[in-house]
């Protein structure tokens, strides 16, 4: 369950990295903003769960476009470290903006599917099952979108060669806005899915953002199967390590695993080329 959430968030991150080579460190914070948007849509404006999910995906897509336009586009031809710093600035703004607007305390979204399912001897709540199903559907849809549609091919073209893509008449600015929109919309959906299970708070983004980065690095930057598998591996390591060894150290296992894997395979499990910077 945790693994599939990680996978969706990491997918958005790896998409942006693979296509635009931007280490979007503020991704986890976009996820946090998404959780807050769904919270307000449901509790204040009285949206149903599914309309809220769709709405928060749309709103977050807009936010992603704005973020790319303000913080990353001016830096496209600068070293990666500059975008990284810009992302740090953006995450300061997002986290503290949310704190200033709605306070640092946690909030809770009412769970739309509190029932419990008992199948094949496995017991789990409906909401958790929903998370897994939606994650799988999203991953399949994204893959189809990239491989089968013209817009998907355009995005792939930019990923392979920006200048070449420009030469055949692709608007790179438009594609990067698009990519960011998809990436943050994914984060919005993930946030809306998980929000009824866990508390939401302004600081939820930084840990998740960090883990999403761990996953993406684990799988190899820019690799979609890597992000999915990495998400699952991290979820498993945390669940098993936290359950059998020590709950307090569950994050240590996750981060330790990353360091170990990188020690043996410095470009991640599925990483191909070595990054220059």
């Amino acid at each position, binding site marked *: 369950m945790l693994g599939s959430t990680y996978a969706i968030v990491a997918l958005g991150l790896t998409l942006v990295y693979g296509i635009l080579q931007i280490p979007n460190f503020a991704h986890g914070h976009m996820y946090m903003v998404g959780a807050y948007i769904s919270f307000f849509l449901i509790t204040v404006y009285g949206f149903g769960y599914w309309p809220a999910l769709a709405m928060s995906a749309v709103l977050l897509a807009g936010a992603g476009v704005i973020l790319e336009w303000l*913080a990353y586009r001016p830096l496209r031809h600068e070293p990666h470290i*500059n975008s990284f710093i*810009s992302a740090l600035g953006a995450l300061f703004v997002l986290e503290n903006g949310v704190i200033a607007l709605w306070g640092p305390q946690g909030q809770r979204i009412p769970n739309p599917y509190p029932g419990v399912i008992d199948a094949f001897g496995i017991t789990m709540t409906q909401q958790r099952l929903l998370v897994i199903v939606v994650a799988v559907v999203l991953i399949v849809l994204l893959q189809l979108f990239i491989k089968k549609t013209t817009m998907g091919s355009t995005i792939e073209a930019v990923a392979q060669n920006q200048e070449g893509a420009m030469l055949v008449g692709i608007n790179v600015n438009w594609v990067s806005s698009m990519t960011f929109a998809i990436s943050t919309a994914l984060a919005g959906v993930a946030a809306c899915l998980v929000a009824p299970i866990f508390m939401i708070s302004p600081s939820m983004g930084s840990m998740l953002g960090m883990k999403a980065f761990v996953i993406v690095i684990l799988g190899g930057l820019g690799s979609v199967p890597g992000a999915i598998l990495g998400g699952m591996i991290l979820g498993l390591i945390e669940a098993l390590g936290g359950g059998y060894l020590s709950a307090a150290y569950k994050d240590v296992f996750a981060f330790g695993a990353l360091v170990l894997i*990188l020690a043996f395979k410095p470009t991640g499990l599925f990483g191909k080329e070595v990054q220059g*910077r």
Partner: protein
Amino acid sequence: MSAWLKEKWFYLLILAIALVVPFFVPNRYFFQIIIISCLFAIGALSFGLILGYTGQASLAHGAFFGIGAYGVAILTQTLGWSFWLALPISALVSAFFGLIVGVPALRTKGSYFAIATMCLGEIVVLVAGNWIDLTGGHNGIVGIAPPNPIPIPGIGAISFETQTSQYYLVLVFLLLTLFAMHRVVYSLQGLRFMAIRNNEVLAEAVGINAANTKLLSFVVANFIVAMAGGIYASLIGSISPSVASLKITFDFLLFVLLGGMATLAGPILGSFALPVLMEYLQFLQDYQMIFFGVLLVVVIIYFPRGLMGAIKNMQAKIKSKRMGA
């Protein structure tokens, strides 16, 4: 001698100002900010070595600051050692730890290295928060003694109870660090660091052992920052896992970037300019950090070389105007 003076008068002036600062500070609060800024300048300088000169974004820098702080806290508080023994030992422990984790971590490059070190940093924070017997868990360690007095035969002893004496202690360490960094950066080794930053493949092609050179830079930076951490623990008197957190790393990152990467003056300038700016922005309250984030984005877009870069640009412009006239 006079030529030397002509060239260096500016630095001498700054040194002179630094020496008389204690006589002009308006209040204790402001003085404390200056002392902490000096301390962070030491850490920022060492971060400049690994990030600015060697081009490796080590996000575990705050963690090594924390290791130094915990080292001094545990050695002086629990084991009752003298500060002057505990400080170098903690710095050595930090450097050794850097050596052990540096070997695998430095096999990675670019963003991978940043994330790997960030994870190492998180591990240090988590261990500091959970190894209650050694570190006091999330409550941390309180009541750490200030540095032991240095006895001077015939005169008495220099104690470090007052702010003024603490200020001079930190200033001495800052100047030592600056001197060491100056020697390193303008040596052959410094050129090797920069060669790796500019193009690692090319650097290897001309016979530089990239792995060892990066490791050296990493270990030296960790040694220095741990020293800053150790002094911090002793002066502040209490520490908690937050001294090792990513927030500290980000602070260093901001100081170095806003000041100017790959300069010696930049990190120091950043370490002073930022906290002072923060003080003047107190009235913004909750919106202070938002302003801060926007500032960061604006600086990296319009002044990627930081304050020092902006100053150099201005100097160049003035010069070209004079030449043109």
